């Protein structure tokens, strides 16, 4: 089930238990007014889920640094790592697996990044100020919106919902010293009996940041605008219509770990949703959404003074999709059926401009106008066996169809695969079972699952995609079979008023594991590349994840939490790349009335199981410290929240396993966030 940002939820449980001030406080800045009649979907989620979901609470409230990026928020979950290629648009890894193996959605919508180098993950198109929560499912329980191996992350946006007539809002601003990031924005909410609207605007602008010790990290600047709007209309007590739009525009985004930057990354994400309560309990709720989105991503090297050759690399994706979800209860069963589908077209080009001006431009299609058509049915049943036991069953099946639309692209790929068919259909299956046991202080669960996925656009159909880590050109392979995963998971938690601990582990045995395999007989394309890797399949690979979270209230208002995380990924003697070494963290938080102070520590042991075959060098051990304080001022009808802190207090120069090409992380960074609510 949902391991819904476990750490924070547990902190929340603790807080709720030990500090009556906390609840008010953490709700403060954005959605203090949001506890009205919830939209029916979130009510339903609470019913369905055994895991604590903090309703409409704004995610930002969970962090002292309200205006931190969504990326750093997600990173605080123990199942997630973020691969950093710069200061912006980090790529989420779920359970140690990159985005090909997970499904990342915004309100259940599938979106395809338009960058062949994964510089625009779906997560980069949502601002933290829009977000209500991130539902993180590990493994096959996350297959509701698409075939997955690692699981799914669904970013759920905030909606104020229906209620008494009111207009509220907040303006916020922030500044950070390391990269002179300036943040400004506004969140406006209007609600009435049968209509609501939420509009958020956020602007961020950052210069190059400085690594520990003060060295400037060149090409780490970015500018970003994000507009998010959701509007709901209550047709009658049982029916609701919601429309939403996100327009996100990032400009002049530097990627210090890559040889190119981005001049423009633009996404338009739209949806219309219909919700309906049904009269009968056996099927009491129906939600249907239609959506469309398009993403444009323009890579650019004009800011780099020295390149072997100038090039343009634009990419475009368009996705249209739907899902229709029906749920209900029948005696001891709580069930959901989700029919979902989407159509996507991905195109990417590369034009290189010869250093000899008399020569013609060199053009290739790096994504061949690939069309993907996906349709899947996902069933979930939670069976309440008795007071202590319940079981969760999921079962899914999907058809996945690819067609190479562009003749140019098809002819290009046929150079490598003369026998290649223009289309390919796949049948994907998944299923999982999980047993949960609850008794007083103990909560135990264990489960197993099986799932399959199709190769991604790049894995199946990419054409000379340069990977700047191992410095190989990657070629897609349309002849690959489905990747299959067998997973086992277990978790145990023990909670008393004075202490909690939760241990979680999962193990994935992945068959036909897709990975780039070096082909010395092929000649690379990119100037200076080490060679060519063709996507191929290892017979099997193993990924193991384990985490322990614990915490304790030390005294009234003072609490302590800690975490430890370890992952391992290998196939025979080969270490899989981007696998987290042993990491740890601890936070001490003190709250008194409307003050909050926090000191945090984060670190990792040296990476010993790195993957030189994929260009990795070992990341060293590190420990960094962060401190932050916050204060809320209440006026008659307004409130002002002031938060400030220092990250990487000791200005440590460090780089982790997740830093692409070991680009150093930010050095000491002082931030101030101000939120004014009215």
């Amino acid at each position: 089930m949902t391991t819904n940002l476990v750490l924070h939820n547990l902190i929340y449980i603790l807080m709720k238990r030990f500090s009556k001030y906390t609840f008010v406080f953490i709700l403060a800045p954005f959605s203090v007014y949001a506890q009205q009649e919830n939209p029916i979907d979130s009510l339903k989620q609470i019913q369905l889920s055994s895991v604590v979901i903090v309703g409409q609470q704004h995610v930002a409230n969970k962090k002292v640094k309200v205006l931190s990026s969504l990326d750093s928020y997600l990173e605080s979950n123990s199942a997630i790592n973020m691969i950093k290629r710069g200061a912006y648009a980090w790529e989420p890894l779920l359970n140690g697996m990159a985005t090909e193996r997970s499904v990342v959605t915004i309100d259940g919508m599938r979106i395809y990044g338009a960058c062949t180098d994964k510089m625009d993950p779906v997560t980069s198109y949502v601002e933290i100020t829009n977000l209500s929560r991130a539902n993180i499912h590990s493994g096959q329980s996350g297959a509701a919106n698409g075939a997955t191996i690692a699981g799914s992350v669904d970013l759920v946006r905030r909606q104020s919902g229906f209620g008494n007539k009111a207009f509220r809002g907040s303006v916020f601003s922030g500044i950070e010293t390391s990269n002179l990031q300036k943040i400004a924005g506004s969140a406006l909410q209007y609600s009435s009996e049968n209509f609501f609207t939420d509009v958020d605007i956020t602007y961020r602008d950052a210069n190059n940041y400085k690594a520990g010790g003060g060295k400037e990290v060149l090409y780490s600047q970015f500018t970003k605008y994000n507009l998010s709007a959701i509007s709901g209309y209550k047709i009658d007590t049982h029916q609701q219509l919601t429309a939403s739009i996100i327009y996100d525009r990032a400009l002049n985004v530097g990627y210090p770990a890559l040889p190119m930057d981005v001049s423009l990354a633009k996404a338009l994400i739209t949806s219309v949703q219909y919700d309906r309560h049904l009269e009968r309990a056996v099927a009491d709720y129906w939600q249907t959404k239609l959506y469309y989105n398009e993403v444009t991503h323009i890579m650019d090297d004009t800011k780099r003074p020295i390149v072997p050759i100038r090039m343009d690399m634009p990419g475009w994706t368009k996705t249209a999709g739907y899902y229709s979800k029906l749920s209900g209860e029948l005696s001891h069963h709580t069930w959901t059926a989700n029919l979902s589908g989407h159509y996507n077209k991905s195109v990417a080009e590369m034009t290189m401009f010869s250093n000899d001006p008399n020569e013609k431009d060199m053009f290739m299609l790096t994504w061949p106008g690939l069309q993907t058509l996906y349709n899947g049915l996902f069933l979930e049943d939670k069976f309440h066996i008795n007071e202590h036991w319940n079981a969760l069953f999921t079962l899914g099946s999907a058809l996945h169809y690819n067609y190479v639309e562009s003749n140019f692209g098809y002819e290009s790929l046929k150079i490598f695969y003369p026998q290649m068919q223009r289309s390919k259909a796949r049948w994907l299956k998944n299923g999982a079972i999980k047993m949960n046991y609850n008794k007083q202080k103990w909560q135990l669960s264990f489960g197993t699952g099986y799932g399959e996925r199709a190769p991604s656009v790049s894995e199946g159909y990419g054409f000379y995609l340069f990977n700047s880590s191992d410095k190989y050109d990657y070629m897609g392979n349309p002849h690959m079979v489905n990747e299959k995963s067998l997973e086992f998971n277990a978790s145990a938690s023990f909670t008393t008023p004075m202490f909690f601990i939760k241990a979680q582990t999962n193990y994935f045995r992945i068959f036909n594991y897709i990975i780039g395999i070096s082909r010395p007989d092929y000649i690379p394309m990119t100037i200076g590349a080490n060679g060519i890797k063709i996507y191929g399949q290892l017979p099997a690979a193993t990924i193991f994840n384990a985490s322990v979270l614990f915490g304790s209230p030390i005294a009234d208002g003072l609490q302590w939490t800690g975490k430890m995380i370890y992952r391992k990924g290998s196939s025979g003697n080969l270490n899989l790349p981007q696998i987290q070494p042993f990491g740890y963290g601890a936070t001490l938080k003190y709250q008194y009335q409307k003050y909050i102070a926090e000191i945090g520590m984060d670190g990792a042991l040296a990476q010993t199981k790195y993957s030189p075959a994929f260009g990795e060098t070992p990341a060293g051990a590190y420990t960094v410290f962060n401190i932050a304080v916050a204060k809320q001022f209440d006026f008659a009808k307004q409130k002002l929240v002031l938060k400030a802190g220092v990250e990487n207090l000791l200005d440590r120069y460090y780089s982790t396993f997740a830093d692409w090409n070991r680009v150093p992380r930010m050095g000491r960074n002082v931030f101030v966030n101000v939120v004014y609510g009215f």
Partner: protein
Amino acid sequence: MNFLKYTGIMILVIFAMSCKKDSNINNTDETANLTLVKTITNGTHNINLYTENGKLQVGYNKIFLQLKNTDGSLIDNAQVSWRPLMHMMSMQHACPYSTIGKVAGKTALYEGYLVFQMAGNANEYWELNFDYTIGNTAYSANTKIEVTEAAKRNLVSFVGTDNVRYIIAMVAPKNPKVATNDMQAMIFKMQDMLTFPIMDGYTLKIDPRMPGMGNHGSPNNVHLTQSGADKTYYGKLSLTMTGYWKINLQLANAIGTIVKGEEVSGTNESSSIYFEVEF
């Protein structure tokens, strides 16, 4: 109203165009998609020379001919032969050329090829002599022709390690694509100044590279060999992107000995013989 007016005009234009075609079926239909290079006249007949682009260039030239009476009517029963000759300052020589035959399926269109090793200039020129018979009567005609340099190298001429002077001309691809292109070439030997027989049984090894891209190369190329009765050499040329490509060549004889050309490697960027394409 406007819509009707324009539709009417369009219908009229289309009608007029189709009428024109019908009335000239003999003259233009068979040379559709061809461009006239030159009309050669000897007072009795006119010989129209066509190529696809209307030019004669260094390298392989596929040439189409029509013979006409002075009244413009087509001749479909001629036996035609030709002799190209280069008038240089110090000497004269011919070039590889084919016999002339009727184009399959056409009534009065003849075809052949000429492989020019060099372009003409102010003092040196190519002459084309025709000998043909209609019925039992023999005729001849001749003309100076203008042969220009090709934009990219499509012909190599060299003396092999076997002391044979070879001429290799690229026939296809004429319009290369980002794809696995069908490649064709012809291999001749310069036996004497006027005789250029086709050489059989060789292998023309190819290694396409992009010097502007760190000598990027492509996979799944197929060396050119002869197949069947056709004397042309056929192979496959993979071009992974548009731009300038150098097709490095090595010529191997029937027993596999390389008579010219060097393998491209980390230390050797290019063969001494190569073709070029740019698109």
